[in-house]
């Protein structure tokens, strides 16, 4: 059944997922994930694209160690993910900032939880805030920031403890279209500078092609990884790459794969 997909086997896999399954509510429950297989190389940007309810968020929660799988394995740097780990950074769909903490306080939350030492981490926090263009907002509070700025704070928070893996669950889904494009450009710039391994979940094919080295198509009921597409577009990609014929070709092929899997109506 599974289409043969072009895959770049990198020297070392940060993430290796084998036959991962998740069933909610016992044996006759709903199967959210069915034998999902994929791997992510070091420094690779993998986008997983799929419609709502295809199990994307379930997959991400398993990778983040928030919920257990019911079958198969997920390895992070060759160690099974069996619970929350300190070397993972997560960016959720909403910024999830604590209103009683300043921007700097929010960014330092992982440092506080993991007792990494505030003095050392504050230096790093300031550098990362500068990287996302938030210098001067360290002492602002979340309600004083726009949605895009809040999401940038949550991105810095996910990077502060220098995780081996960055998990992003539709991080720009709640933003307006223009802010979202600007955030995509910015995320690419940050990724090119820091080269984190990223698993990026989205329901936008355009966003996936723009950002990713590879795009995995996920189909629903039960959630499976279908085709994988290697995106061969030069970086840094500017927004007008979206008008490029090759870009359109990727988007069309990914949409076709989503349709074939029953992903779109």
């Amino acid at each position: 059944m599974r289409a043969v997909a072009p895959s770049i086997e990198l020297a070392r896999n940060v993430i290796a997922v084998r036959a991962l399954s998740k069933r909610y509510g016992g044996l006759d429950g709903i199967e959210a994930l069915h034998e999902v297989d994929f791997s992510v190389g070091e420094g690779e940007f993998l986008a997983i694209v799929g419609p709502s309810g295809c199990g994307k968020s379930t997959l991400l929660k398993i990778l983040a160690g928030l919920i257990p799988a019911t079958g198969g394995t997920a390895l992070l740097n060759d160690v099974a993910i069996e619970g929350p780990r300190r070397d993972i950074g997560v960016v959720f769909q909403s910024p999830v900032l604590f209103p009683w903490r300043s921007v700097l306080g929010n960014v330092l939350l992982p440092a506080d939880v993991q007792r990494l030492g505030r003095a050392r981490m504050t230096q790093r926090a300031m550098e990362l805030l500068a990287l996302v263009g938030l210098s001067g907002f360290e002492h602002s509070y979340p309600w004083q920031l726009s949605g895009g700025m809040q999401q940038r704070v949550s991105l810095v928070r996910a990077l502060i403890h220098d995780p081996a893996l960055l998990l992003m669950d539709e991080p720009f889904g709640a933003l307006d279209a223009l802010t979202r494009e600007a955030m995509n450009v910015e995320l690419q710039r940050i990724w090119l500078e820091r080269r984190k391994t990223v698993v990026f979940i989205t329901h936008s094919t355009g966003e996936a092609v723009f950002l990713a080295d590879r795009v995995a198509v996920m189909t629903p009921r039960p959630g499976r990884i279908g085709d994988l597409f290697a995106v061969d577009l030069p970086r840094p990609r500017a927004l007008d790459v979206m008008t490029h014929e090759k870009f359109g070709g990727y988007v069309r092929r990914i949409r076709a794969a989503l349709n074939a899997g029953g992903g779109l109506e």
Partner: protein
Amino acid sequence: MTRATGGVVNFMLRLVLVAATLAVWEALVRLAEVPAFILPTPSSIFTALYRGIASTLYLNHIGITLAETLIGFVVGTVLAFALGIAVALSRPVEYFLYPFIVMFQAMPKVALAPLIIVWFGLGLTSKVVNAALVAFFPLMVNTIVGLRSAEEEKVDLMRSLAANRWQVFWMLRLPNAMPYIFAGLEIAMIFALIGAIVAEFVGAQSGLGMLIQSMNFTMDVAGQFSVLPILSVLGLILNGMVNGVRRRVLFWDPSQKVDAVASAQKKGGTL
């Protein structure tokens, strides 16, 4: 007209309205020749208030009632906070305490005042116990609800960072519960005052509740009326204390700003 002069004009209008109400009251009582033991004139109430304060008769009673209220508030809220945390964090504690909580919550706590006087005597202790009892429930309920109100994604964020139970409590659940806790403290403070006064009605040697009660026996109706503004000022001061702390602690909560404006207006109106 600027906003500032508009505010001054409105404030003057309020004063005029209060003065007019008192004048109508005075005139009606005099014209209808209502006996003083039914409804006294505002002027006789002011005279009684002035005499009570000038003779320092009221000061002692104010001090006693204030002490009962504050000690009762502290005792009741500290216990409520501790028990609220235990119930919110521990399923077994919640399971076994639940029947007691439901039973006590549905019951008007002031109905226990006569028993409390029997158990703890006519002195300060019984008033403190009664004030603590009525102050206890609003804060306990709000503490439980507040500690459980942390959004799931925030809990997920903490868990994704490998935070332990205590870190989730200290860094997320407790600060997140603060708006609820302060709403509970505000109610608890006013309830403590009510609890102290009711206990004084039932049996006491001093305090503003006892003063009202003894004036009632001697048909000193103007005197009874004169204690009421003292109680409202007391209530406003106690409420203002909680509000002052709340505004400092909850500076981060935008919804508090609306409340602060509303309560400032409320104060202007009642003072």
